[in-house]
C-alpha cells in the first residue's frame, strides 16, 4: 500500500475519535469531515516524487499525533478542517489610496 493511501486509511480510522475529542459533531458530520480531508489530499495530487510524498505523509502524521494528544485547540481544527478558510492564504489587494502611495514611491 502506498504511503499516502495507508495514511488516508489511518486518518479515516481515527476520525470518530477526533470527532468526539474536539466535539465536532455539533458542527459537522463525519462524512463532510472525511470529504474535506480528502480535498487536502487532492491539493497535492500532482506530486509524484516519492521522497516528497514521504515527507508530506510524515508531516501529516505528526499533525495527526498532535491532534490525538490534544496539543491543538478546537479552533485550530475547525479553521483547518471544518470551515477550510485560511485568512492568510490570499492577500487582499491594497486599497486605491495605498496603491497610489506605493506607485508614487
Amino acid at each position, binding site marked *: *500500500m502506498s504511503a499516502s*493511501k*495507508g495514511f488516508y*486509511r489511518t486518518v*479515516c480510522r481515527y476520525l470518530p475519535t477526533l470527532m468526539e475529542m474536539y466535539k465536532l459533531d455539533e458542527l459537522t458530520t463525519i462524512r463532510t469531515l*472525511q470529504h474535506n480531508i480528502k480535498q487536502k489530499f*487532492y491539493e497535492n495530487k500532482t506530486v509524484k516524487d516519492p521522497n516528497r510524498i514521504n515527507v508530506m505523509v510524515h508531516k501529516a502524521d505528526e499533525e495527526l499525533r498532535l491532534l490525538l494528544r490534544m496539543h491543538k485547540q478546537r479552533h485550530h481544527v475547525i479553521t483547518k478542517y471544518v470551515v477550510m478558510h485560511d485568512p492568510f492564504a490570499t492577500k487582499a489587494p491594497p486599497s486605491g489610496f495605498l496603491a497610489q502611495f506605493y506607485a508614487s514611491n
Partner: protein
Amino acid sequence: MALRSLAGSIAKSVVQTMGVSGPSALGAGRLRLGQAALFGLRGYADAALTKDEVTARVLEVVKNMEKVDPAKVNEESCDFTKDLGLDSLDTVEVVMAFEEEFQLEIPDDEADKIASCQQAIEYIAQHPMAK
C-alpha cells in the same frame, strides 16, 4: 484405581445435581453430558455467510458509495478503478465500508489486494469472522 473411583464419585455427584439417577446414568457419555450442562449450554455461531448473500451485500455497499453510478455496478466486471472510475482514496473508502458492513478488520496488505467487487466477495466469503 483411586483415580477411577474419584472419577466415579464425581460422575455420581454430577448426575445427582442433574437430578438423574439409575445405574445407566453413570456412564462416561452421561458424565460428558453432565459437564456440558454444568458449564451451561454452548452457543454456536450462525453458519458462515453464503456467497449469494455476500454478493448482494457487497454490491449494495458499492452502489451506495457517493461517487459510484449504481447502474454500472454488476457482479461480473466491476473493477473499482477501471469500471467505476474511483481513485485510490475512494478505493480505501470502499474497503472501509466493507469493514463496517461485515464487521471485519481487513489488514492493510489484504485491503490493497481488493481492487474489484469479485475480489471483495471472494475475500469476505472465505473470511471466518464476516457477519
